[in-house]
């Protein structure tokens, strides 16, 4: 029964969104459905928080491998949630200086701002920067010219890697820039040709393919054939 209601809600919402684009009196349906989505998403956030607590508390109590990571996750989650909700360290706003909670949650100097500035920002930046080291290691060990296709890939990678830096300009500076029939061979131009011709063609094909797939999946959801979004045991699968 509950699954039938969920499928009905999804179908009605999807059909309303589609019709709002084609039938003028139904234009407001799009906004209404978007507001429903916001309300549902807010509830989902609470459920997500509860799920995170449950999973990590279970992992800690079981003392399985890596339970310490769960403890750190829980501690960070609760600390961030706590200082954000209580506005720890936030100065009152200019308009309401007598009310401690009147300041903005993420105001400079507050505990949440401090966590963002000195914990989240450097940690995420460091993780992103570390990719350079792992990519370099992978380039040495895995990027092998084992066949013709791999050789083409390697050649393209070299052109784009060098063409996107000043090295490309230096290496092929001997090719005259004012002769169009040869200037395209300069690495910086060749790199641009690869991006604008081959990359564009490949990406367009993928975008069109994905769009057709999304449309097909959308129709299946609208008519109730695809219930995979309801999770395991939906009884519908792909219809």
């Amino acid at each position, binding site marked *: 029964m509950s699954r039938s209601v969920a499928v009905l809600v999804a179908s009605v919402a999807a059909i309303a969104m589609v019709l709002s*684009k084609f039938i003028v009196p139904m234009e407001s349906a799009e906004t209404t459905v*978007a*507001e429903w*989505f*916001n309300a549902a*998403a807010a509830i989902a956030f609470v459920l997500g928080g509860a799920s995170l607590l449950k999973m990590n508390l279970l992992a800690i109590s079981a003392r399985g491998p890596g339970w310490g990571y769960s403890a750190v996750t829980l501690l960070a989650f609760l600390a961030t949630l706590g200082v954000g909700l209580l506005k720890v360290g936030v100065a009152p706003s200019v308009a309401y200086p007598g009310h401690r909670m009147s300041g903005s949650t*993420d105001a*400079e100097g507050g505990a949440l*701002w401090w966590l*963002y*500035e000195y914990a*989240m*920002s*450097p940690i*995420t*930046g460091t*993780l*992103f*920067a570390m990719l*350079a*080291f792992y*990519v*370099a*290691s992978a*380039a*040495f*060990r*895995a*990027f*092998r*010219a084992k066949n013709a296709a791999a050789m083409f890939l*390697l050649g393209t*990678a*070299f052109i784009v*890697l*060098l063409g*996107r*830096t*000043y*090295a490309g*300009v230096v290496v092929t500076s001997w090719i005259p820039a004012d002769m169009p029939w040869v200037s395209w061979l300069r690495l*910086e131009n060749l790199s*641009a040709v690869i*991006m*604008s011709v081959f*990359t*564009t063609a*490949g*990406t*367009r094909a993928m*975008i069109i393919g994905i769009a057709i797939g999304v449309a097909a999946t959308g129709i299946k959801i609208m008519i109730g054939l695809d219930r995979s979004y309801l999770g395991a045991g939906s009884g519908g699968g792909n219809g």
Partner: protein
Amino acid sequence: MASHGGQPSFLERLDRMDRRWIFLAMFVAVAAPILWVGVTGKTFPEAPTPAVQGAFDAVDSLPPGARVLVSMDFDPASAGELQPMATAIVRHCVLRGHRICAMTLWPAGGPMIDGTMQDVLGDRPDWKYGEQWVNLGYRAGFEGLMKGIEGIADFDLLVSVSAGYAGAKEWVQYSVSPTLTGPRPLRFVAGSTGVQTPQLIPYYPNQMAGILGAIKGAAEYEFLVNEAVRKADPNAVVPAKFQEAQRRMAPQLFGHVLMVALIVLGNVVFVGLRGREARA
């Protein structure tokens, strides 16, 4: 596999090289140019590509006082690549006297706006909040209220500096469509990470007037803005904070050259060992 009386050969030693040597090489390849740029202040000249020139022209051609919506759809993880881009575009808007409406589609993007505006407007007390610029921040499912703005089509230019979903692609799908903007097309400029740029290139030049791809695109844009500043005032001194993207091209150059060298070296080892196996 061992040769020379059980001793591993040079190729074999290279093949089994501890990856920490590669990490060290990458560290030196990036750190040394950063130090060099920091000490000398020198940067490489840039030759702007048509996509970057298109972005620059889209901002530059607007009359002073034009309304520009700048959406900074990224967080600290990609700030290294996108922050100089956001700074250069906002600075260009300020130099041209455009009114800026800043916002973000990312919950963690609010401080990105604060930092950018502080960098650009820190020494511009004449720029009044609420008159020349406004910060809508991140607003889940809501819109800000502004005088004279009833919809996206009331802006003269839309800019998105984005690191993924939701970002430039979604701005094309939901805002640049002619069904939303009406007879007056909304000009759109996007800046994105190197990983995301190939997904945006098909939208140039029809849906997007210009694209800034990765730190290279940011450096080219920064170069154009700084050249315009020097052209207006030959004695102008451009602070280092407005050359961040250009300063990052030197470490990028050596990083890329090292990557190419490692790929070549890896293949030399691969071919050498395979040839030896075939002969054995």
